[in-house]
């Protein structure tokens, strides 16, 4: 195979052709093959999903062909997949024509949009290194990069120069000799588009922006202190998404905002005996106040994100009514989004956030019963009790149990999920993954069951006496189909519960979280 060793060095100064020729010596002659100027952007979503997958997404546009952009997904300096001839920079996965890159982005991004993280303006000079018969034996690339951040306020540009030595097949010896003669220029090894290096150059640290996973916990820490610290972290994370909600960049900002506030609120509720009653109640109330104004927008987002799903459910005669419904929702959404944006920049909201932060920052006073108990004792007991409750509630569910009880069970599963997520650092990672995976199967079925019910209710809520007949027909058609889907999900609940409460899993949970056993 053609295992050609390339060299890529960071060098301190941009060398001219003459200087390179002098260093290489007279046996090989340098000729310039061309110069290119390219504008490159490093793209990622706000939560760094591409970075976290160990990959980078590069969008580049040559100065002489501005409407022929190119997107490349890179792993370890090697392209994984790419797409040429992009007239605009993609934002969502579906902005890329169908193919391998689209599939990869769909998996990495979901509903998130791409934002520009870094800009790299590149001037690339390619020199051919020829023998006495003018045959090219290798090429040199001198790359001058000006790198600047698109995040935050510091957009200071940083310059760096790279030298690449690109051997041609069958001429490795010559490339090694040239590399030796140019070695004195080398500052250090580099990659031309190594995301880590480029981010560090612009002082961007994605890890510092993201919530640590799992949350850092000390098993000996008192529960109240740990709870206050973790809730603060979750709130800080939630507030990261505010700017994106206000700018309406994509729907994931609001979703993640809500997820983090809900996690914080749920923790305060699950561990309410670790805080003074009055304070705990007030904290929970304020967090509920934060989420409430976001409900309407999220409901509309969920509905609009189902556009192609709903479209696929209904036959052609219903499509125009459905489309009308989507258009109306889009218009209403604009209004609701603006109202939320106003709320998020309001003094009341800012004041609430400051109050929450100050309250959570207070030192623990250990007045509540669970407050002074070491975290690891509380964790196992809470997880095990919640698991047992799910099994107990689950055993009472039959084909005829009212839907309300199934919804209650879903909420308990959610609680268990929050507990497993929150206390993850206290247990072996493999154990937490195993239990979370088992829980997820049940949660998916219960979640589907709930979603179909909620969607029906929400759709029916839109039918009034003024609703045009086409639109009403589309809504009723959808409701009928969603009801059928809800019945299918309902029929799967029993089986999923049986698996989750199986003897094997019960024994596993008991061994892992039985309160008598102290671990880690």
């Amino acid at each position, binding site marked *: *195979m*053609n295992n050609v060793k390339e060299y890529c060095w960071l060098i301190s100064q941009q060398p001219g052709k003459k200087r390179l020729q002098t260093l290489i010596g007279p046996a090989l002659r340098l000729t310039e093959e061309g110069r290119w100027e390219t504008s490159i952007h490093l793209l990622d979503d706000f939560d760094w999903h591409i970075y976290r997958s160990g990959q980078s997404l590069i969008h580049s546009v040559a100065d002489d062909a501005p409407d022929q952009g190119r997107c490349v997904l890179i792993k370890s300096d090697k392209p994984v997949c790419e797409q040429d001839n992009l007239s605009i920079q993609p934002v969502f996965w579906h902005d890329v024509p169908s193919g391998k890159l689209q599939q990869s982005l769909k998996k990495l991004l979901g509903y998130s949009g791409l934002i520009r993280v870094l800009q790299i303006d590149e001037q690339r000079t390619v020199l051919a290194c020829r023998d006495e*018969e*003018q*045959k090219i034996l290798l090429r040199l690339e001198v790359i001058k990069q000006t790198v600047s951040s698109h995040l935050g306020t510091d957009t200071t540009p940083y310059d760096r120069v790279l030298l690449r030595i690109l051997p041609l*097949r*069958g001429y490795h010896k010559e490339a090694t000799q040239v590399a030796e003669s140019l070695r004195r220029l080398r500052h250090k090894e580099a990659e031309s588009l190594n995301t880590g290096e480029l981010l560090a150059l612009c002082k961007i640290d994605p890890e510092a922006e993201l919530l640590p996973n799992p949350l850092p916990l000390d098993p000996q820490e008192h529960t109240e202190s740990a709870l206050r610290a973790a809730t603060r972290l979750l709130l800080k994370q939630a507030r990261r998404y505010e700017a994106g909600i206000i700018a309406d960049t994509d729907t994931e900002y609001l979703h993640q905002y809500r997820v983090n506030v809900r996690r914080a609120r749920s923790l305060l509720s699950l561990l309410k005996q670790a805080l003074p009653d009055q304070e705990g109640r007030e904290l929970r109330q304020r967090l509920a106040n934060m989420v409430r104004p976001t409900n309407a927008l999220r409901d509309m987002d969920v509905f609009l994100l189902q556009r192609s799903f709903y479209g696929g459910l209904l036959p052609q005669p219903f499509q125009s009514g459905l489309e009308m419904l989507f258009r109306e929702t889009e218009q209403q959404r604009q209004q609701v989004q603006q109202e939320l944006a106003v709320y998020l920049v309001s003094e009341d909201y800012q004041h609430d956030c400051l109050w929450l932060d100050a309250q959570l920052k207070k030192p623990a006073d250990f007045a509540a019963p669970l407050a002074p108990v070491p975290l690891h004792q509380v964790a196992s007991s809470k997880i095990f009790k919640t698991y047992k409750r799910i099994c107990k509630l689950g055993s009472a569910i039959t084909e005829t149990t009212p839907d309300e009880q199934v919804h209650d069970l879903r909420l308990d599963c959610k609680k268990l999920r929050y507990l497993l997520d929150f206390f993850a650092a206290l247990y072996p990672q493999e154990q937490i993954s195993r239990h979370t995976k088992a829980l997820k199967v049940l949660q998916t079925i219960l979640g589907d069951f709930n979603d179909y019910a909620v969607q029906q209710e929400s759709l029916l809520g839109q039918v009034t006496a003024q609703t045009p007949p086409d639109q009403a027909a589309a809504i009723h058609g959808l409701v009928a189909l969603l009801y059928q889907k809800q019945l299918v999900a309902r029929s799967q609940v029993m089986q999923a519960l049986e698996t989750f409460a199986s003897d094997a899993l019960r024994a596993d949970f008991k061994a892992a979280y039985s309160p008598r056993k102290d671990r880690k």
Partner: protein
Amino acid sequence: MKVLAIYSMKGGVGKTAASVNLAYWAAASGLKTLLIDLDPQGASSFYFRVKPAKKDWGQRFFKTYENLLKQIRASDYENLDIIPAHLSFRNFDVVLHNLQKRNKRLKKVLQGMRKEYDLIVLDCPPSLGNLSEAVFTAADHLLVPVIPTTLSERTFNQLLAFFAREGYSQEKILAFFSMVQSQKNMHKGIQDTMRQAWPDFLTSSIPFSVDVENMGEYRAPVDQFAHNKPANAAYQSLWQEVHRRL
């Protein structure tokens, strides 16, 4: 992977020029292409400025494909690699004579290239011996340049007769007129006669051109120094026609 051999029993008919230019256009069209210069004179290697190996390796050519891999050199053009000829290739007929299953040897070593290349172009020496038979077996298509002269016509018919006699499929043969001088009546007449007798002649033909002769001076495919000339368009058109048939 396809194997395209540029072959004629007769010398000086434009085999090397066709090999160089077709390999160049194949690579330019995006196919990972390997040109193997089987002619010990090494003319196509010369056109691409690739020097032959220092070591005498002709004896090892038909043993394993790894021997070939070591000899691959990149050309100056993207997607195009070359195995340059070596003087020791002049003994290929003898080398093959001493090997068992000699007709299948070339096919077998070329199979080792299928992961890396889409197309292998063989620039063959003008002969009819063991090497040629190994080429007839290995190639998916034999591209035969024919100068529209009486002698070339005779050589082409000899090749057809040989294929018929030895049981090689004549369907492999793709013939085209080379070094055509349209002002000559004889060239016109022989092209008509041969097209009638062998309707499968490719429609593209290569004109007799100083630009093709100049490849020796420029040491590059015609496109590199005579981009707008008829000879260049002719090779491009020939490649497109061959590509459709591969």
